[in-house]
């Protein structure tokens, strides 16, 4: 599970709540009135599992009781990054549907699990069908948004998100999706604003939901190069939910951006310990290499490659990381060819920005920069101002013979995150651009 996969696990759990103190977009410690940290043995999802099991074991069984347990299991999947919890969830949903074959909540939960397992096309189709049954159900629109975003259907995602707001303005489940869409459309400030609105509406007792939102705020601040603010948010998330794998990952990214590779390694190692997925091992390997432990990093890369290849055909995979590894780390013509083949296969199913970006980069690395420029132009048309995307677009444009376009892209990368690695590299790239003649 990559962080930027907008898991639908946020949906049903979030509820409007008494507003809680914002920890701050400036460098402030969390106030003393902050919610108590979650004990390692008790999490919102594990507590919900216990309650749901107790309910199931008392009184008559019902579809609703099985759905409640299924929901708790799915939430646990997000807490732990453990996909086995989706299997347990699905078992409960089967029981629910045996009791009530048309149960709306059970069918909706199945779609949630499909999203969690990255079965995006199936989830999208199912969510559209479910939406026809109840066009006022805001959660179903949320599932449509999530699936559509992963598939690159941004217009459909936006339309569904707008209906969430039309029907029930300001709910956290809507505002988080608004935030994500705004980020994709290049409005980082608006994205932060929406995510803050979601945070203010989240119950203090929903510690994992709040930690998720804070982690995403950290990511957004990192996107625009404010590592201080990002660290505050990520730190707050870890206070709320210790060893939260998403927050550990973002914290690792923050330290890397600051050049503190050892600290990055520590956080990413812990993240890998909690959530031992190949993509997390890849990030750890990158940080390890940056910290100078080359031999150790190479061992990790090898292990990553093996694990990633083993799950490459699964819908939930580390293919984007594998592609990046082959194009940027290995870099041999054979590796680049493999990368291109793998990402092209993915691009036949999905046209989201990360996929298009990876495809374009592979095409560029394979020497076909003109085709790469056409590909990345599709990604750029969505609007994201992500510094890495824009820097890559600049490199591709330059290689494709469009120095003016290259400069435009470098400028955007710099404007988005001037102090970030890609912002700095963009500045250096601009300096290297051939001077334009006065006739231009």
């Amino acid at each position: 599970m990559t962080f930027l996969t907008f898991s639908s696990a946020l949906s049903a759990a979030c509820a409007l709540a008494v507003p809680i103190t914002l920890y701050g977009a400036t460098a402030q410690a969390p106030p003393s009135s902050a919610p108590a940290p979650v004990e390692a043995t008790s999490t919102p999802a594990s507590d919900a599992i216990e309650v749901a099991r107790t309910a199931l074991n008392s009184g008559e069984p019902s579809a609703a009781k099985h759905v409640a347990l299924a929901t708790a299991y799915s939430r646990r999947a997000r807490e732990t990054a453990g996909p086995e919890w989706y299997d347990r969830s699905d078992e409960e949903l089967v029981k629910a549907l045996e009791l009530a074959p048309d149960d709306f909540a059970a069918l909706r939960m199945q779609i949630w699990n499909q999203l969690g397992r990255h079965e995006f096309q199936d989830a999208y189709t199912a969510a559209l069908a479910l939406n026809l049954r109840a066009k006022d159900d805001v959660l179903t629109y949320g599932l449509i948004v999530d699936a559509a975003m992963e598939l690159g259907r941004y217009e459909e995602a936006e339309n569904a998100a707008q209906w969430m707001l039309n029907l029930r303005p300001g709910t956290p489940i809507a505002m988080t999706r608004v935030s994500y869409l705004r980020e994709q459309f290049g409005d980082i400030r608006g994205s932060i604003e929406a995510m803050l609105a979601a945070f203010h509406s989240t119950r203090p007792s929903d510690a994992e939901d709040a930690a998720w939102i804070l982690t995403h705020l950290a990511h957004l601040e990192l996107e625009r190069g404010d590592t201080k603010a990002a660290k505050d948010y990520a730190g707050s998330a870890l206070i709320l939910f210790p060893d939260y794998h998403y927050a550990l990952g973002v914290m690792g990214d923050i330290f890397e951006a600051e050049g503190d590779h050892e600290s990055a390694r520590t956080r990413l190692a812990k993240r890998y310990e909690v959530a031992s997925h190949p993509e997390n091992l890849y990030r750890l390997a990158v940080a390890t290499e940056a910290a100078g432990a080359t031999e150790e990093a190479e061992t990790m890369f090898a292990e990553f490659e093996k694990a990633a290849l083993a799950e490459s055909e699964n819908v939930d995979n580390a293919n984007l990381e594998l592609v990046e590894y082959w194009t940027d780390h290995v870099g041999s013509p054979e590796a680049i060819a493999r990368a291109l083949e793998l990402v092209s296969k993915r691009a036949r199913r999905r046209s989201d920005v990360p996929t298009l970006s990876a495809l374009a980069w592979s095409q560029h690395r394979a020497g076909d920069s003109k085709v790469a420029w056409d590909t990345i132009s599709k990604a750029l048309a969505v609007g994201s101002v992500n510094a890495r995307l824009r820097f890559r677009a600049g490199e591709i444009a330059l290689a494709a013979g469009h120095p003016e376009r290259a400069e435009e892209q470098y400028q955007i990368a710099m404007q988005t995150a001037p102090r970030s690695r890609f912002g700095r590299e963009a500045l250096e790239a601009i300096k290297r651009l051939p001077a334009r003649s006065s006739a231009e």
Partner: protein
Amino acid sequence: MGAWTASASNHREAPITALDHKADITDLYAFVSYDSQQVAGETPEKVTMILNVDPFLEPANGPTLFPFDPAILYEIKIDNDHDAIADVVFQFRFTTEYRIPDLYTAVAGIGANGAANPTTGAAVVPPQITSFQSAGLNLRQSYTVDMLDVATGNVTPITGGSGAPFYACPANVGPRTMNYESLFQEATYTANGGISVFAGTVDDPFYIDLGAAFDTANFRTLRSGIPGVLTSFEDVVVNQNLAPDMVSGFAVNSIAIEVPIAMLTSTGMVMAPTSPEATIGVWGTTSRQRMTVRSAPNPAVNSGAWSQIQRVGNPLINELIIGIGNKDRFSMDEPLNDMQFAGYFLDPPIVGVVEALYGGALAVPAAPRTDLLPLVTYAPPIAAAGTPSGPVADLLRLNTGVSATPPAQQKRMAVLAGDNAGFPNGRRPIDDVTDIALRVVVGGVLAAPFSGYNADVNGRLGDGVMWNQGGYRSQFPYMQSCPSGRNRRHLDPGEVGAGVRD
């Protein structure tokens, strides 16, 4: 056993409007205008459109009465080229003023001279309210009317000849405080372009045995011995109810506008009924602005684009046809997008419910219900043959070429009774849309013949409420006066004039 219906008028039919009373549209009417001098076959000249909002106003309630909401944009929309997109829009906005801020009530008045302090002789209570300038009319609402030509974007203000504002008629508090009738007359304005406008609190013209309807169709058993089925004799009763009109004695806020037909058709002319251009589609909407900032103790501030809260076309779609899990989306979406609800139109779940309630004794037509398509497309018998059907859309379709029926000859069952100037060809206040909906949607009278169809059962479904207890005016704005708050009466089951109590 019992026949099923829900209120075929939209009184609180969607979750969102159950929480936003002021934006709740109860009824939309659209018909070729008539008056007491109407002659059969007379060439149509004008169309009246009435948008009623804010249901079940209790006339005795106070002290602030029932103003229109200044934060709502009320609109009546007309499609005249059969694409389910508005071509002409009438927009109504209200402004409230409190003329005596220290007075505790919205209205006060007594006699010709008012009442004075017995000791000092200082005036305390104003004289009876007889006009919009009367001192005792504390809460006074004015409103603007604009006509929008969607294609050009031109907005034409509708104004009275004198330039004075249009005032909304307040509720009828009682005979001491006001002369409601004089206010009602004054509130009926003749504006530029041959247009007439009215807004105010009036008697709710809708009629139905509402309690029976929502007690899972627990309709009264009348002379047929079958609940919800009328005898042939009962079916032609006029000006009498065989069951309680549970809307009796309640008021509603009404916006009425009468417009020359030439302003509404795509040709700019009155067209023959056989011409496709004669048929227009009408619907009403209420909208609020997207942003509300509340910062007590200051009033809330609204800003931003308008966001639709509710819409009404036909009198039965959202109420009777659309499932409750879809009502809000239906209310907020455009008619153009109604294909998403086509499943409901072609196979209304209510039909199965009634079939179950009757235990199979009532034969119902099978899906797909193509006989219902004229309600949601431009098609005969409303539109002329050859009219483009347009997209599936809930619009109240009115053939403006069909002459109005003189009041004395109007039949509550309208088209089903051979009176082609009524529902579903537009809708007049007198039309018994409850019984029409029962017979058309559930009884399948337009789908007949089919196996088991019985004209004396399927064609006689009804709630026993045949007319509005308060009656109607026979000229613009057609709405009856608001019941007196002091002396109003709600007719209950078993009371005289309210039919049986079983």
